[in-house]
């Protein structure tokens, strides 16, 4: 498999309604989950013959499992971008055990039903597929079991609360789950002085996952939830819902919806509220050019730059690790929109994840998942006397010098719990006038955990 080659480019045009990173599970998903179980054996058999053991030879492939086509393709583009940046740095530093690393894009189309055959095929046919990244909420329920059963370590960006306490050996997550994100929305509202918030979530799995965290956190801060409404996506009119929300006189809207739903809702809010709309707090999943383009056209530039806050995983823009990451993102020729990739904190975990898994392989002298999987935690947590490294190159050099290492990457320190989760801290970002993300503030992870306790 050539580096960067697009696997399984099925152009799924089903309405999975994406833009937000943590969308939905459909009935087809349930069927697909059943199919996944039947195909596990095949996947496992397939991967067994793909050179995932020992030091081997040839390019080591990172399976970037995400929606490369269809309505959620923008998410796949972000994921693959982070991979291209990571392999650029890894290969520039000398690769893993002297071998090149490449990105093998696996198109799950954002649809669990398509994801099962596509991922199964990729696991069976991609040579040297030794790590995986992506596996977002839409398809996580079907793709993660496949990868886990193939004994391939993975760094997932999914936000499903179900994975807060997973026992999947090869699953790792360095981003918060959706309920933690929900609590972070409220933490930001509190920071801005908004005590009366209206909660409006689209009826998809990602947005619905935020809701328990929002409810718990609003209660914790002694705030008022003026309305808590779930809306269908892409309706032609939300006027009745908008009228209910306006009646509650909220100071801010916690709104999670895809670009089309958000644009329609906010536009009708403005029409029915004398031209004014309260500030919106939403997920960094939406800080994309598509969202900016769709919403700006109806809400105007001033609203976009002053009244929209996107809350999600924190990355420190002043750290050395970030500057290295940024340089790689701007240098990777496959990346068309570097500013957006840098603005979405969740995506940085893919970059960190590839560095981490690459260093773990190097440390274990093996590309075999069962062999190097445990070293991921060792490097992330650090052992006494370990050298702190913030790039792959620094980590590789230290390992070659015979030292133990402790990786602290773009997302800051990693503290994996017993379930391989490290939610980290949060940040709030906004758009500048050109639609580029700008970081506005930081929300400590401890504060969010307190809101949920």
């Amino acid at each position, binding site marked *: 498999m050539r580096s960067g080659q697009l696997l399984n480019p099925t*152009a799924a*045009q089903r*309405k999975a309604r994406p*833009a937000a990173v943590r969308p939905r599970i459909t009935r087809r998903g349930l069927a697909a989950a059943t199919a996944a179980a039947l195909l596990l054996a095949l996947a496992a058999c397939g991967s067994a013959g793909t050179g995932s053991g020992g030091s081997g030879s040839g390019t080591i492939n990172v399976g970037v499992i995400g929606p490369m086509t*269809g*309505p959620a*393709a*923008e998410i796949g583009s972000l994921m693959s971008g982070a991979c291209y940046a990571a392999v650029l740095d890894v290969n520039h530093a000398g690769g893993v055990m002297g071998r090149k690393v490449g990105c093998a894009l696996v198109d799950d189309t954002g649809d669990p039903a398509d994801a099962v055959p596509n991922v199964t095929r990729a696991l069976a046919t991609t040579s040297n597929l030794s790590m995986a990244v992506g596996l977002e909420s839409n398809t996580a329920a079907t793709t993660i079991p496949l990868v886990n059963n193939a004994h391939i370590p993975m760094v997932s960006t999914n936000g499903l609360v179900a994975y807060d306490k997973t026992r999947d050996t090869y699953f790792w997550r360095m981003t918060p789950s959706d309920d933690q994100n929900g609590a972070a929305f409220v933490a930001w509202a509190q920071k801005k002085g908004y005590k009366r918030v209206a909660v409006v979530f689209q*009826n998809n799995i990602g947005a619905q996952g935020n809701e328990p965290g929002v409810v718990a956190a609003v209660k914790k801060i002694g705030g008022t939830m003026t309305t808590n*409404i*779930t*809306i*269908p996506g*892409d*309706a*032609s*009119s*939300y*006027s*009745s*819902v908008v*009228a*209910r929300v306006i009646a509650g006189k909220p100071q801010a809207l916690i709104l999670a919806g*895809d*670009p*089309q739903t958000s*644009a*329609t809702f906010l*536009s*009708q809010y*403005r*029409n*029915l509220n*004398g031209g004014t709309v309260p500030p919106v707090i939403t997920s960094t999943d939406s800080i994309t050019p*598509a969202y900016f*383009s*769709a*919403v700006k*056209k*109806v809400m105007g530039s001033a609203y976009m730059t002053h009244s929209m806050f996107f809350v999600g995983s924190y990355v420190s823009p002043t750290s050395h690790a970030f500057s290295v990451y940024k340089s790689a993102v701007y240098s990777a020729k496959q990346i068309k929109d570097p500013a957006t990739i840098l603005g979405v904190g969740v995506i940085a975990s893919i970059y960190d994840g590839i560095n981490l898994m690459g260093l773990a392989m190097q440390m274990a002298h093996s590309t075999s998942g069962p062999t190097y999987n445990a070293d991921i935690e060792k490097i992330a947590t650090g052992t006494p006397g370990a050298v702190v490294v913030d790039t792959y190159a620094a980590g590789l050099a230290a390992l070659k010098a015979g030292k133990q290492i402790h990786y602290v990457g773009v997302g800051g320190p990693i503290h994996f719990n017993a379930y391989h989760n490290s939610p980290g801290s949060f940040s709030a970002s906004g758009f500048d006038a050109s639609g580029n993300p700008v970081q506005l503030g930081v929300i400590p992870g401890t504060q969010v955990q307190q809101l949920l306790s």
Partner: protein
Amino acid sequence: MNVFIEAVGFGIAAGVVVALGAVGFTVQFGISNVLNITYGALMTLAAYLGYALLGLGLGVWEALAVAAAAIALASVAFNRLLIAPLVRRGTGFVGVVIVTVAAGIIIQYCIVAIAGPDTVSYGQQAGSTVRGAGFVFTTTQLIIIAVTVVAMVALHLLLTRTQLGRAMRATSANPVVARSCGIRTERIIDLTWLISGALCGAAGVALAITTVSFDFTIGPTFLIYMIAAAVLGGIGQPYGAMIGGLVVGVGTQVAAAYSSPAYQDVYAFGLLIAMLLIRPRGLLAAGTASARRLAG
């Protein structure tokens, strides 16, 4: 009470768009006996055509008119080049339906290939807000309501007051007898596709104006509401389709005003089923051959 009146107003604004499309759908089906699922994709095409025309500097109503004309011609071509030959060769009713499904998917893929998968927007076209008697409308919604009413009246006059309308109804009732009476039924069917296409195009742009932003799935997503409205009104019954559209629109908005909006469609379609249980052939009695076939 205010909430209810307000919701009814919102429902009328949403329902007229459904009605506009449903009338075109049901007229075409009633006369040509083709259940045209491509209708949804053609609505999408109209929405994107309107978007392109706005980009060229046309006003939104000019764009609506041009898109309606373009889709009208496209519909005639679609029938002449694909549907009519299939019917002539004896393709059955279901076979033709499947072809329209396939054609719709192809059109949708072509739209994505050209325009991309991302959401696009006509921008803020709502105009000012008008309040009265508990209702709240935007000026744009009022214009869409007016356009729909004018289209319905014109269609009514065409069907009931003109020789052409009588020929259309005759073709609808029994094409063989109509042909033996000297009616050029192929031309009548062409004209039906033309009218249906124009309403489809107008509905596509009106829908894009109403939703503010949209993507390539807009037409097929709303086709189900239009079919529901057509069935509720009585297949082949333009006035029934209009009433059906309003019932669907008002039903969803009233449901959203009083319960979880996530289930607004459940309530609206539940209402539809209940009404069909009471009036199995639709609100207005089904009279065409197609209607009899479908309504049982």
